[in-house]
């Protein structure tokens, strides 16, 4: 009989192997999906995993999409590590775009290039304030941060629509729901001439480095993680869970807002109802696939960006719907969670006649502890 046996120690190898295993399973399911749709599975998979890294231009496009994903996922990693379930990053991203866009709209061609700094700061502030509502309601009124943050996504989306259909609509825009095109000085500077990649990539990468230091080399970061892993131990040590809540939500809201402002002043150059592209939700997957680790998130954001570009290519080259991206993203998270089981458990064969002694499962919280035979 096949059964799960808990490992005496969580397996470090599996922790790294699990995302790769999950990717492999997703690919197998994807290949069978393609053949069911009547496409050659291998060439269809190549659209997803070879085309997006074929040449320098493709890499640049990959980085353009990976930047917001990485920034948001970094913040979410901090949140999830401290056991704060912020799933409304999409809303904080929208608010960041609104905040950054508001500053950018006031710029003229004479404005200094340094206007970019207030634009990005406004984005960070707007995103952090939006997440601050979640923190406030959780802290003062004990309202579930999952539901509040999610509800605020819809509110943010409607707020954006109100602005672009109403007071912020470009008077010379033929009645299209869009703001004016921001002055050229607000544009986020490009890294290399001829490619769309801008300095947002550098900002995202240095944020990853900074968060690594924060999480693993500072006392505040340590406190956050203890609060997430062992709330009782954190309480005993006198670490404030309220403080952790506020820090985690401010960081993740601020970073999502930064991503929004970079997107508005970078690739978009104006606000439209299509600012939200699902990055806030895809970043949840990025955070988990990246093992809630800043360095892991860098690789995971590239992978998720491949899914986005692959979906677009599949639409233009293979005539498949773009929504395939969402199917793959969801599948990947599902298989990842299943594979993660192998970190704490191993699969073992047992003849049903002679059950071997079962060590105590290494589960937090609810499992009853007994003198272990581990």
């Amino acid at each position, binding site marked *: 009989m096949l059964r799960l046996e808990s490992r005496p120690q969580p397996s470090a190898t599996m922790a790294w192997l699990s995302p790769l295993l999950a990717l492999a399973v997703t690919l197998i399911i994807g290949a069978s999906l393609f053949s069911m749709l009547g496409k050659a599975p291998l060439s269809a998979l190549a659209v997803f995993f070879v085309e997006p890294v074929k040449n320098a231009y493709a890499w640049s496009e990959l980085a353009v999409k990976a930047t917001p994903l990485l920034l948001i996922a970094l913040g979410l990693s901090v949140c999830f590590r401290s056991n704060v379930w912020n799933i409304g990053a999409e809303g904080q991203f929208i608010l960041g775009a609104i905040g950054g866009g508001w500053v950018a709209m006031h710029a003229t061609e004479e404005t200094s290039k340094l206007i970019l700094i207030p634009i990005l700061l406004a984005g960070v502030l707007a995103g952090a304030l939006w997440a601050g509502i979640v923190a406030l309601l959780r802290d003062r009124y004990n309202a579930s941060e999952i539901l509040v943050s999610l509800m605020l996504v819809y509110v943010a989306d409607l707020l954006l629509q109100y602005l672009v259909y109403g007071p912020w609509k470009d008077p010379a825009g033929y009645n299209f729901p869009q703001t004016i095109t921001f002055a050229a000085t607000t544009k986020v500077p490009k890294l290399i001439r001829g490619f769309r990649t801008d300095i947002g990539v550098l900002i995202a990468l240095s944020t990853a480095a900074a968060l690594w230091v924060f999480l693993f080399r500072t006392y505040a970061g340590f406190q956050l993680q203890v609060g997430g892993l062992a709330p009782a131990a954190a309480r005993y040590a006198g670490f404030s869970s309220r403080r952790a809540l506020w820090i985690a939500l401010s960081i993740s809201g601020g970073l999502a807002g930064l991503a929004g402002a970079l997107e508005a002043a970078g690739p978009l150059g104006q606000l439209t109802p299509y600012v939200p592209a699902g990055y806030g*939700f895809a970043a949840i997957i990025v955070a988990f696939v990246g093992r809630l680790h800043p360095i892991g998130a860098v690789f995971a954001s590239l992978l998720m960006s491949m899914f986005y570009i692959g979906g677009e290519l599949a639409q233009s080259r293979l005539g498949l719907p773009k929504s395939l991206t969402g199917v793959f993203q969801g599948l990947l998270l599902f298989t990842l969670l299943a594979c993660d089981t192998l970190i704490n458990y191993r699969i073992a064969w047992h003849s049903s006649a002679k059950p071997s002694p079962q060590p105590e*499962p290494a589960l937090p919280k609810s499992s009853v502890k007994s003198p272990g035979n581990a």
Partner: protein
Amino acid sequence: MDGIAPLIASTLSAGTVLALAALGLLINERAGILNLGAEGMMLIAAIAAYATCVHTGSDTLGFFAGALSGAVAAACFGALVIWFNTNQYATGLALSLFGAGFSAFAGIKYTQEKLPERPRFAIPGLSDIPFIGEALFKQHPLVYLAIALTVAMSWFLSRSRSGLVLRAVGESPESAHALGYPVRRLRFLAVCVGGALVGLSGAYLSSVYTPLWVEGMVAGKGWIALALTTFATWRPARVLLGAYLFGGVTMLQFHLQGQGVNIASQWLSMLPYLATIFVLVLISRDINVIRINMPASLGKPFHPTT
């Protein structure tokens, strides 16, 4: 006065979407499982029911397809969280994300399709009463089924032996296990039955309430249903009342827009979401209310030790 009867009627209809989903989630949660995948399950069920309806022309088959697809999606979730001990929050989120992607993918052909002529319902006799008949007795059978289900579930949870066992599984799985109840199998059963109800709600949404298939049409109703179970302090009758209340808020928004109130439509559309946040704050504010009513092991994994 003219607008009131249709407003009540549409409130009941809108409330039924939420009531069915929230009752399904209630069964899950009473068994100790928090399923954040409601939004995804509703989307999958909505397109499954719609497609079945388009191809077979039968609403009944559509409802079956919706309930079945909801149950299957819930079973995937249940297998992972119950036997593989995955994190319930993350797994539910995965289901919601997958459901959004999958339904958009599967539904692409159906955005242009129309359903066969929608049947009209009226209870003979009662529906002829002025005002009341218009408001209450010209509804789809599922509206009355939701009410019947609420009554049945209240009885089941508080009066029946199996309901007691289910609650024990949600409150203290260790004790239930020690008494010899198959905790994990019971939880799995609850997840599947709950998923079927959530699926039925999605089916009702796409084939009766709207009736259309639009990508992402559930628009947060799965999440609102999740909030409703907290709002109702995990009691079926209050779930139904809460669902009608929210149905009312949704309808009020359309009503006000129809009346030409001078507020941008986006502000009115925010109402259901803001109302959800408001009631969550209202009910969660008193931590004791939550502590007394919430199933004690909600969201916690259970792994029996041999």
